[in-house]
Structures are given as structure tokens and as C-alpha cells.
């Protein structure tokens, strides 16, 4: 497909001018950049960051990932890291068993809000409290995306889902659970942060959070969690272009971005990463 508009530059091939490539299509640790997630989905953006950080830390050959069940599960076939596919909600325990047998490896989980905060809430809490040296990565879009946009434990008040058609009502549906805040008082927790992929600045900050979380694991400081707010235009029933704005206004209101625990010590909510 080519444009006949005069002002459009050719972006098909490599540039002919002397230049340096500063960013590649897909991260090195993906077998294939083509995937079947929806247009405008935030999950692949977060997965890119995760894989880039593992690569940049030099742990590509020393990492074991445990993948939960949600839309991101489609990446189990694409991520070029040794993986264990867990059942819905069960990744933190699986990561625990693997880490205890291979303490020299970097262990991470990749889970959604439905997976971690609904089905497997007690898993992540106990894993944190045991101070397991694993890094849990939560892709929080406030819905069960995979099943078609249903309410999860992180769905914001007022948010419309297929099981909260008039918007989440505290009296009827109960309140959202801010999982990152919930882990703050636990001993054993070394690093907790919440990022987002709503815009490029947030993406850059979130990548720094992932790096810190893994560095805490490598330093043997205990449990770490990075929660990443991701767009789900399909499950939010909005146009893709409205995703970032909706994320900030609806999910971001309940789940504020920032670092919550650094070096095992709680830091002020909303501090930038």
C-alpha cells in the first residue's frame, strides 16, 4: 500500500541517509512480532518492556517465566524464554516452586487482573509475604479481556462491563481491590510499583520499574511486583484511540501510578518512578 500524497515520506525500507537504528520492531526475545491481540491492546506494549529488560539485564539465558491465563497467554507461544504455562491464578505458586529449585534463575510471572487479583489473590499475597525472590508482573486492564469484558476485582467504580452493565456500583458489586497497595505492609516485599502504557512517558517509566523489580530479585531482596495498567478497548467497549484517555481517567483514578515500595521500604503513594 503506498500513498500518493506528496508530503508523505517513504517508510517502507531502511533509510538511505547515514543513520543509526535506535529502536527495533519487536523485542529480541519474541519469536514473532505478529500476534492476535486486538488493535489498541496495551498488553503487547507491556510484554515488550518485560522482554527488553530481561535482555538488557543479560538474563535471556537465565530466566524462567510463568504465564497466567488471559489474553496475554497467546504470547506463551511467542516469547523466546523458557516458560511454564500455569493455570488461571496459579502462577505465583508455580514460580515459587521453580525458584526454590533454581534460585540462580530470574523468575517472573505474567498475569492479568482477573488472574492475579480474582482467581489467585491469595497466591500473590502469600508469595509476597513469604518474600519469595520472584517478580510478579500484573497487566491490569480492569476486566476479564479474554472472556469478553467482564468485571474483575480491579474494575473501577462506575466502569461498565458485561457484568456491571450500568457501571460498577459499590453497593451491588463491591469495591475494587488496589493490589499494589495491599502488598505494601507485608514483610518480604522489596519492590512494588504501578506503571502504565497509556503514553510514551509512562511506558519509559514502567520499563524503569521493571528493571528495578528485577534488580531487587537479582540482589536477593525478596518479592517484587510491577503492576502495569493496560488498555483494553475491546473489553471497555470504546474506540482504540480513546483507550489511553479512558485508562487515565477511569482505571488510573483508582490505581494511581507510582512506586509504593522501594528497597523494602514503603514510599509515598504516587511518587514517580
Amino acid at each position: 500500500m503506498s500513498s500518493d500524497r506528496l508530503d508523505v515520506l517513504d517508510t517502507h525500507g531502511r533509510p538511505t541517509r547515514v543513520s543509526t537504528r535506535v529502536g527495533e520492531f519487536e523485542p529480541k526475545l519474541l519469536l514473532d512480532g505478529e500476534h492476535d491481540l486486538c488493535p489498541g491492546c496495551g498488553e503487547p506494549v507491556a510484554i515488550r518492556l518485560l522482554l527488553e529488560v530481561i535482555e538488557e539485564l543479560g538474563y535471556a539465558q537465565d530466566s524462567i517465566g510463568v504465564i497466567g491465563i488471559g489474553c496475554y497467554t497467546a504470547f506463551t507461544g511467542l516469547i523466546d524464554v523458557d516458560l511454564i504455562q500455569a493455570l488461571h491464578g496459579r502462577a505465583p505458586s508455580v514460580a515459587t516452586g521453580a525458584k526454590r529449585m533454581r534460585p540462580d534463575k530470574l523468575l517472573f510471572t505474567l498475569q492479568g487482573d482477573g488472574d492475579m487479583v480474582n482467581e489467585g489473590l491469595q497466591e500473590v499475597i502469600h508469595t509476597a509475604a513469604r518474600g519469595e525472590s520472584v517478580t510478579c508482573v500484573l497487566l491490569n486492564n480492569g476486566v476479564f479481556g479474554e472472556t469478553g469484558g467482564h468485571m474483575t476485582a480491579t474494575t473501577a467504580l462506575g466502569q461498565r462491563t458485561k457484568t456491571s452493565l450500568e457501571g460498577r456500583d459499590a453497593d451491588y458489586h463491591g469495591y475494587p481491590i488496589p493490589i499494589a497497595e495491599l502488598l505494601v505492609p507485608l514483610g518480604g516485599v522489596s519492590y512494588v510499583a504501578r506503571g502504565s502504557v497509556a503514553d510514551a512517558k509512562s511506558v519509559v517509566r514502567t520499563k524503569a520499574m521493571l528493571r528495578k523489580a528485577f534488580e531487587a530479585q537479582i540482589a536477593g531482596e525478596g518479592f517484587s511486583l510491577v503492576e502495569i495498567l493496560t488498555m483494553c478497548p475491546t473489553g471497555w467497549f470504546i474506540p482504540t484511540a480513546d483507550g489511553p484517555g479512558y485508562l487515565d481517567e477511569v482505571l488510573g483514578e483508582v490505581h494511581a501510578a507510582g512506586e509504593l515500595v522501594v528497597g523494602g521500604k514503603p514510599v509515598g503513594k504516587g511518587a514517580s518512578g
Partner: protein
Amino acid sequence: MAHRGCRAMTLVETRGTIRIDSERCKGCELCIPACPPRVLRMSEGRNTRGARVPELLAGCTGCSACLLVCPDFCIEVYQYAEPVMLEAVNASESGSGDNEVTA
């Protein structure tokens, strides 16, 4: 090209460029507002998926913001060794630059 002179023409400093895998693109438009100098816009035409795809105008800084937000890994970013001045149509109406990103 006779009609060229009818448009406002400016020379824009261009420090980088991108490659777009237009067949991978799903047309989500997330890259458009992400671009600080606003040198991306959606095409009129569609790829074989049926999606409009981004088009690059003069003035790219090679900042990677578009790549960072793209969910479909369609963008590769290059920085030129030397900035070049490229002709742009209506380029002066591009963004304010307040989205500047340092990766």
C-alpha cells in the same frame, strides 16, 4: 508538479525517520497522538487487513515515542547522523513538542 506551489511549503529540520511494517499495523491510531512533533497521521488507504496505517511527514526526531506505544510492533526508529531539512506541506501546524520523550 504543478499544484505543489499552491500549498504552504516549509523546510523542516528532520533528525530521524521510522520504518513502518504497514501490513502488521492494525490501525489503532495510538502512535498518532504519541508523536511529539505530530509528524504522523493516518492514511486514507487501507492495508490488506483493512486498517488505515500511519504515514510519516517531515520533522521526525527519531524519539521512538511511536514505537513505544505501538501494540503491534510495526515501527522501527532511526536517527540520522546529520539533521536534514525536508520540505513539508503544512508542517508548521504540527504539534507543540510538549510530549517530548527521553527514552
